[in-house]
């Protein structure tokens, strides 16, 4: 786990003040009263984890407050020299990336010709995907062409990755090339 640079007292002061401002805007609280009670706010005893914004490439730091297995609050990371605690509209609302009801939380399958999704378990999904990958690969794999070793399949494509972590992009790159995939593209162009 990471050590935050802020000491606990500074931190409470900072996040309490921010929370109070937010409460005034959102709920019409009396500011002074709200500030006085800031220690009782839901974030006062939350766990704080630093992250980096998932949107553009500036790389602003964000603190994620979690409590009772949900995200209760997010705010700019004052320690991060890139943004010094400031955020834009997207960075500010990053909490809803977790809380939005639109999040899909179960694997879904759509059969050929079907007009609906079906919920499936991970085991079946991953196993079926691996089977499809192997079938297509085996059927289309070219070992040599004109006497040159090429070890490729031109029937499988892999797209995307610009929103993944470095470690993930590394494994996608390694696995796809390891399988012989040559249609490999992410969002650098689009």
């Amino acid at each position: 786990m990471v050590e935050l640079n802020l000491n606990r007292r500074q931190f409470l002061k900072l996040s309490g003040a921010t929370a109070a401002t937010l409460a005034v805007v959102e709920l019409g609280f009396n500011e002074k009263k709200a500030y006085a009670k800031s220690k009782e706010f839901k974030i006062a005893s939350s766990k704080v984890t630093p992250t980096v914004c998932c949107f553009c490439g500036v790389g602003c730091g964000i603190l994620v407050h979690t409590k009772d297995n949900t995200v209760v609050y997010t705010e700019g990371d004052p320690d991060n020299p890139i943004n010094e605690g400031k955020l834009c509209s997207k960075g500010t609302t990053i909490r809803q990336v977790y809380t939005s009801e639109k999040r899909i939380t179960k694997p879904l399958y759509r059969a050929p010709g079907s007009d609906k999704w079906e919920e499936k378990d991970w085991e079946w999904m991953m196993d079926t995907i691996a089977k499809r990958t192997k079938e297509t690969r085996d059927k289309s794999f070219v070992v040599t062409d004109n006497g040159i070793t090429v070890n490729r399949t031109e029937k499988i494509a892999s797209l995307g990755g610009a929103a993944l972590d470095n470690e993930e992009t590394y494994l996608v790159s390694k696995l796809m090339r390891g399988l012989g995939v040559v249609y490999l593209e992410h969002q650098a162009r689009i």
Partner: protein
Amino acid sequence: MGANPAENHPISFRWLTKAKEKGGKIVSVDPRYTRTSAVSDIYAPLRSGTDIAFMGGMIKYALDNNLIHKDYVVNYTNASFIVADGYDFNDGLFSGYDEAKRSYDKTKWALAVGPDGQPVKDPTLEHPRSVFQLMKKHYSRYDVDTVSSVTGTPKEDLLKVYEAFCATGKVGKSGTILYAMGTTQHTVGSQNVRAFAIIQMLLGNIGLPGGGINAMRGESNVQGSTDFGLLWDNLTGYLAIPKQSVPEHATLEGYLKKETPPSGYWSNRPKFVVSLLKSWYGQNATAENEFGYQFLPKPGAKNYSHIFLFKAMFNKELEGAFLWGTNPVVGGPNAGREKEALGNLKWLVAVDLWETETAAFWKKEAGSDPSKINTEVFFLPACSSYEKEGSVSNSGRWMQYRWRAIEPKGDSRPDLDMVHDLALRLKKMYAGDTSAAAAPFLALDWNYGDGHEPDIDLVCKEINGYDLTTGKLLPGFGALKDDGTTSSGNWIYSGFYPEEGKNRSKNRDNKDTGGGNFLNWSFAWPMNRRILYNRASADANGVPYSKEKAVIHWDAIQNKWVGTDVPDFNATIAPSAPGGTGAIMMNKDGVGLLYAPTMNEGPFPEHYEPFESPVPNAFSSVELNPAVVIHEGDFNKKGFKADYPIIATTYRVSEHWQSGTMTRNQEWLSELSAFMYVEISEELAKEKGIKNKDKIKVSTARGEITAYAMVTKRYKPFKVRGKVVHQVGMPWHFGFKGYATGDTANRLTPHIGDANTQIPEYKAFLCDIRRAD
């Protein structure tokens, strides 16, 4: 220019406003008066697709008025190099053009080489065949009157921009160019960036604080995913993929010989390649089997990038596809065609947090008939960035670690687990298979633990690399070897994890270590260097050109380069030693390329009109970039000015992100920016009888969309070559899923790409508009 940081990279813009408070000047060049323009000191409008004309005029202005940094130009660029006799330029075409193939014989553009094998130079820059003189001649055609008539920029605005920016050529001053997709997404996108590089080299603005050309990355890790080889023609760390079409690539020895220059930092390439092969194929990579080189796939003699990929899919050449958090049904060019193409797949795996338009392409709401689409679709729910751990690299190459704040929501999982899980299952399925097809996959080293979740720390260490004789982590890429005794999954990142327990992307000491470089916050590749080519901030003798803009200097007592940043140079090579002035060290001759004989459409940027343009080219009789690939037929219909007289472009708003998937599925952002609109000038609105908030139709040769009209003063008609030309603009974030829905702008955009990178020309195409009722 080509960027609108106030709206698209707002927190970066905070630093521009801080610079302004200190007396800095902001110049905004954009077809539309954006929020960046509103805060700028100078605003100049330009017609979409005319950046080279605009910059060509600036190059001429800098040369004519002797505003260049001459000492820098002589030492750190190829201005003094003599060009051999083959090079010529006539009416829009460089020598060596093959019209049938739409390509050039680049050997015609070679530089002159002396008997010693070294480039022939004239440091006085006066030789008529010197790069400097040829460049001067090339841009002598870009006079302010011609430029103004092409770009539609009023002459006085052009001169204001030229004067302000060229003033940064003075020692002690610096200027930077921030750009984004407004620059790159053109059929001349690469040469647009080249034009920026040329002016920055002429003004001595590369390698010092406040200088550079800065790509404003649109995605949190588009830098990292490019670094890690997720584009078809690059392995990790920008190592070229071996190709079947290059005969030398048939063997590792041939590949290394062909791809390794005799000088410059890339002369170390064999060490990077062999170490990568050791990371990927482990014990199965031996000196006897070319370190597993033959296991790597070799693409055939074609292009495999986005447009070509979808063309292959459209032509039923593909069977399966993985989508890792990407949504081409909204974000791809000519998106209607891309949606159709998906129906030709047998299976599709979509990994995302939300049901994207692409994952749902088969639905009625997508305009599809599900009963006729036989694609099997697997939707895998991914968790968000703070429900997992790992690092991302920002526009400045700072690799910052993100910790897990909360367990993945519901049954969602990190992408890392999914890739690992899939790899393990496939390994199991192939186990014992002795076929030739199984061999390369079975040889792939995959050791991140046996569980469904890989050990991310092992992945991080593999990227950094090991000394395989001791098993210890490597201190950096300087320690890599080409004999199979070292490994590194991505050489440019080597050094981020130099010893056990020290993953430097986790560094969080935010004390400014000098020059605003924050060397102990995160890790910047390569080797924690924050300003690339910072050797160029000092003169040939190693003395900073100015105190104000000093970064590193040669310390003769310590016998090394020292300063506020890690030297982006071999720290112990003295200025007087061989190679001691080769500041642009990644290039073969250690200099920046004003003349780049490697580019597909010519060594100097030349203005051509976009694929669809309302006016003929004023600079030559060649209308379109002569080296672009034209896709004919139903896949990419072309529109002409008779039917589509208005220029259109696309852009983004602060509240939405890319194809809108991440933001249109959030309540607050959807409410802040809820509707698809098209921004049009008051003059055009009047001409067309359109009022603000009217519903209008926008049509191109590819498709038609409906949107609200936003009538604004932000667009003004351009006066181009004596005629009035209108331009409209629209956000490309919308689709049919999420809270905020709207028609997709990319159903209008063409399937044509830049001649070097195949980046699609989203930013300049022709349309017509009319009231919807």
